[in-house]
């Protein structure tokens, strides 16, 4: 929620700018957006008609760049570097931050080896400094670093722009979560019923025993 609140104003600003600029004038805006340290979402900018109009023009690579930042990773850039503009240091940083978010989509426990490969980092210190300063302190990710297991346990990761086809998976996950919660509530109700039943039967048994004791006492006296 925090990260969305922080970037809402930034998104608004870039969308408004994109709505009044046309053609080549959009290029510096796209570069600025993909370098902005507070922005991690690009679908709003991608949806602006003026931006989509860049497709098929000499600046269509910049639409590709926006799509890369919306859905892609650092590895995607490396595989398509010849078809995309060269990235500045700020853009490289941002793309690597977004790569971590994508990694966290599929796994909660991210091995250092996997992260180092994805982020082109050669040593653990460099990786941990990146995760601490550029990810955790930037507020896009929360988690714990485990040097013994050489992994990063993710507790929270900010959401990236949805890829086509991802919505179906999300709906399925929500449905599964809902039905699991319903089943669990039913189980809890059953357990409560069982516990009440056990308590009643225990009370009855206790009373029976006490009554028996009284009987025996009377018969002895």
């Amino acid at each position, binding site marked *: *929620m925090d990260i969305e609140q922080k970037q809402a104003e930034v998104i608004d600003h870039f969308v408004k700018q994109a709505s009044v600029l046309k053609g080549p004038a959009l290029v510096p805006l796209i570069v600025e957006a993909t370098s902005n340290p507070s922005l991690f979402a690009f679908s709003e900018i991608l949806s602006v008609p003026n931006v989509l109009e860049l497709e098929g023009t000499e600046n269509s690579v910049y639409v590709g760049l926006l799509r890369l930042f919306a859905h892609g990773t650092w590895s995607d850039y490396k595989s398509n570097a010849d078809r995309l503009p060269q990235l500045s240091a700020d853009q490289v940083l941002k793309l690597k931050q977004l790569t971590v978010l994508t990694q966290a989509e599929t796994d909660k426990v991210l091995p250092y080896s996997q992260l180092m490969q994805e982020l082109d980092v050669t040593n*653990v*210190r460099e990786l*941990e400094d990146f995760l*601490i300063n550029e990810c*955790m*302190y930037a507020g896009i990710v929360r988690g*714990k*670093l*485990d*040097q*013994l297991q050489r992994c990063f*346990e993710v*507790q*929270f990761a900010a959401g990236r722009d949805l890829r086509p086809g991802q919505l179906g998976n999300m709906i399925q996950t929500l449905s599964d979560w809902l039905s699991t919660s319903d089943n669990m509530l039913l189980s809890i109700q059953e357990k409560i019923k069982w516990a009440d039943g056990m308590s009643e039967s225990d009370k009855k048994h206790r009373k029976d025993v006490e009554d028996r004791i009284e009987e025996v006492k009377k018969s002895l006296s």
Partner: protein
Amino acid sequence: EEQVLVIREKLAELYESEQQWSKAAQMLSGIDLDSCMRMIDDTFRLSKCVQIARLYLEDDDAYNAEAFINKASFLVSSSQHEVLNLQYKVCYARILDLKRKFLEAALRYYDISQIEKRQIEDEEIDEEALEQALSAAVTCTILAAAGPQRSRVLATLYKDERCSKLKIYPILQKVYLERILRKPEIDAFAEELKGHQKALLPDNFTVLDRAMIEHNLLSASKLYKNISFHELGTLLGIPPPKAEKIASRMIYEDRMKGSIDQVEAIIHFEDDTEELEQWDQQIVGVCQALNDILDSMAKKGF
């Protein structure tokens, strides 16, 4: 005794004018404030004790200043003299600061910074003086031993709007948020410190070094489940055995949760029992996030 008093006061004035503060203080301390030969009221006694303490503090002599502030403490509770009471508070805060009782000093400086009156009898209280007291409170809190007590004071200061206007605010923010402080930030903070706040300690660390190392160690404990001595040393910029020693002291003093495995040379920052508690906390977090989404949806008319 009256004449002796007058002479001593005059001589002290002369020493003060020549900025020979300790000599002025020594001159005044020869006045017999407990004499049964004269009628001496408590306000006079209090004013002399505070004056002597202030003079000693001009030379950063906390030891002698404390002796007179302790005498003054018996008199201040019944004193109606607001200016003297304020001067007493300031002296006491400075003595605690000089004696490196930073957390107590911070609380006293903060108390002073919250004075609402701008005029007390003939003395004007200017905003700059209050700002200095607030800044001193922040500095002392940052230098205090990292742990739960310091965290509470940090929270109070961070939430005080006045602190956001201080030059020292960026480092306060980082310390409050328990972020690791890097060398350039520490060096910038060091420029604002007084001599005793950068003094060398018996373990060859300075007061500032120790505060920063302990803070960074506590920050690391929030980021790591476990860390090797070697990596911890690299992170803190100190040899691994020293990192281990400082960590063990902080754990022993209950200022940090964790355990040390000397065989594997690893520090574990969490207790064994915390996994299930974390589960509870994570569930709470998920429910709160869900609530936030539902609120956003409601606001947008869904």
